[in-house]
């Protein structure tokens, strides 16, 4: 049992002929992922890293039985790319593309949800399960198969932390980078139940950031429904009071959204909260030991 990706995951890379698409298709293959197809309109018949390229996602699905998509398509075209994948029957879409307008993402999220497709991202590093598959761009070098799950709103900070887990001799079951945009396809609350059910995960690391209330909502879920040990970290404790989102923003988040409220909510839910990234591996090692007992 795994979280969202496994050995049956067959990836189509949308935007495979672009620089990032090509680089990361290669790295996904090196990770051991079954990358079966690429899509770039007008480039059908070509190959990238030995992977056949198609004009449309539907062609790729018919010919290669692709069942997950990794989207590198530039922001102005990302909405169309996602809808195309959903319409072709893809049920897991990782959107790496950054700077997608949230009005587009609102449409993408609700369309995908109505059709039963899960989105991870946008502006995210994706998902990886060592020994199974990677859909996204997290560097391969940070992974080692193991039993610690990771959910994070950050990109590079996730790499730092996943790497730290490896350096203390532990490994990861599945790592999901949710992305830090205002509208994300999968939030902490959506991802937590997957790790609760996952028999390969003993303990969970949750990496949050200031802004929004996703961490508080996640803490609420942990308090009532999550039984495994959780180690959390919130980046941005020292950040200067940012440019405010306007008055209406302030009344939605009323009394939430700061580092203090997030840390307090997580601690109240029973999570161990690290104050700095380098404390996480130590706390995880402790949590993993207690979970095995």
């Amino acid at each position, binding site marked *: 049992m795994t979280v969202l990706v496994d050995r049956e995951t067959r990836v189509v890379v949308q935007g495979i002929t672009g620089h990032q698409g090509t680089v990361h298709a290669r790295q996904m293959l090196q990770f051991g992922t079954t990358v079966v197809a690429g899509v770039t309109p007008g480039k059908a018949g070509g190959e990238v890293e030995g992977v056949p390229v198609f004009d449309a996602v539907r062609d790729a699905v018919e010919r290669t039985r692709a069942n997950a998509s990794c989207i590198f398509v530039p922001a102005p075209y990302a909405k169309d790319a996602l809808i195309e994948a959903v319409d072709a029957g893809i049920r897991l879409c990782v959107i790496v593309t950054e700077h997608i307008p949230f009005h587009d993402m609102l449409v993408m999220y609700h369309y995908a949800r109505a059709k039963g497709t899960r989105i991870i991202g946008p502006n995210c590093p994706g998902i990886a399960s060592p020994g199974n598959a990677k859909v996204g761009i997290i560097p391969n070098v940070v992974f080692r198969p193991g039993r610690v799950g990771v959910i994070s709103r950050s990109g590079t900070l996730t790499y*730092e932390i996943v790497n730290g887990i490896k350096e203390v001799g532990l490994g990861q079951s599945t790592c999901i980078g949710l992305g830090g945009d205002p509208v994300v396809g999968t939030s902490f609350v959506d991802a937590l139940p997957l790790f609760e059910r996952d028999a390969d995960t003993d303990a969970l690391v949750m990496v949050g950031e200031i802004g929004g209330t996703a961490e508080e909502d996640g803490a609420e879920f942990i308090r009532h429904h999550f039984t495994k040990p959780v180690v959390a970290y919130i980046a941005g404790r020292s950040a200067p009071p940012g440019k405010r989102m306007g008055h209406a923003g302030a009344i939605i988040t009323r009394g939430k959204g700061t580092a203090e409220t997030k840390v307090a909510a997580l601690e109240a839910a029973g999570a161990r909260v690290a104050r700095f990234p380098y404390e996480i591996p130590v706390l995880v090692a402790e949590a993993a030991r207690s979970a095995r007992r």
Partner: protein
Amino acid sequence: MVKLAEWQGKSVFRKYGVPLPRGEVARSPEEAESLVRGGKVPLPCVVKAQVLAGGRGKGGAVRFADSPEEVRAASAAILGSEFKGEKVRELLLEEKLSIGRELYVSLTLDRTQRLPLLIASARGGVEIESVADSEIDRQTIDPFPGLTSYEKRRAAKVLGLSGTLARSLDRLLDSLWQVFQREDAELVEVNPLAIVGDGLVALDAKVIIEDDAAFRHPEYAEVRDDRTELEEIAREKEIAFVQLDGNIGVIANGAGLTMATLDVLKELGGAPGVFLDLGGTDDPKKVTEAFLLMARAKPASVFLNIFGGVTRCDTVAKGLVEAMGQVPATERFPLIARIRGNNETEGIEILRSAGVTSVSDLRESAQAAVDAARGRR
């Protein structure tokens, strides 16, 4: 985000048919006076400072005038003054209306529910943060059907409007919804929305346009904002660059890692001064430009903390070494590097050959940056 000044927000509103007071923008007392004398703005009128901060009425940044002389005097008093740290460069002159009740409506994003949110309150004309939750109505709006009649009827009820006024609200909300969607706004706020006779008028306009939608809206590229000169140069080069008060420069990649780096420096007694987020660049030239920009901010020390994913460590190292060669000897500063991730070994070797040691421990390297800055204070 692009925050529009009131007059800019109102010119957007006008395009979508939101009822507004008659008004004109002035940039000098003479211009203000002549607008009134020429009949472009009827008397009595309101002279409003065009600043982004709230609380203008209480702060003396909104004044009333009954004659051209008073308009000129009020304009002279407000123009060039500072309001909550913002210099007043523009005024909006508007006819003074005889108003009834003041209401509040806004459209924004509810991140948790991933839906647009329509907020309405009968308690307008005051800062909405000070209004009790029980007096604020929130409705999420599904983008697929869009704003529907039943949602507008509920807003009318909350605002205590019926008959002609309810119909006026119906049209106004349709217009605001169009502004929100078509202009890619993250906030559309009308406070106060005033009852004037048997209609509604938007007395103020707060509109924030989302940056990520800039490719659809070249018209907002010129809107002024509160960036410093270096921040502006950084923006043109697509480097995230923020100036704070401290003296340690931070170069990192990714928002989360940048924030975590600032947290650690602060905990160790340092004061981060400038931070620069390289993002996911794969281009040594961009790293060089970023580093030179950092040099212009004259930091006491610089802490480079990179975890290479999309960005490769050797790319960063190459760009860095190139930039160091371009900084004059007198303007050099201690550089503490920590580079990890893709092509880490190559990157560390390039730095070593240029005389820079990369320390792999976060705490240790951050401490070195703090100590180096302290030595030069």
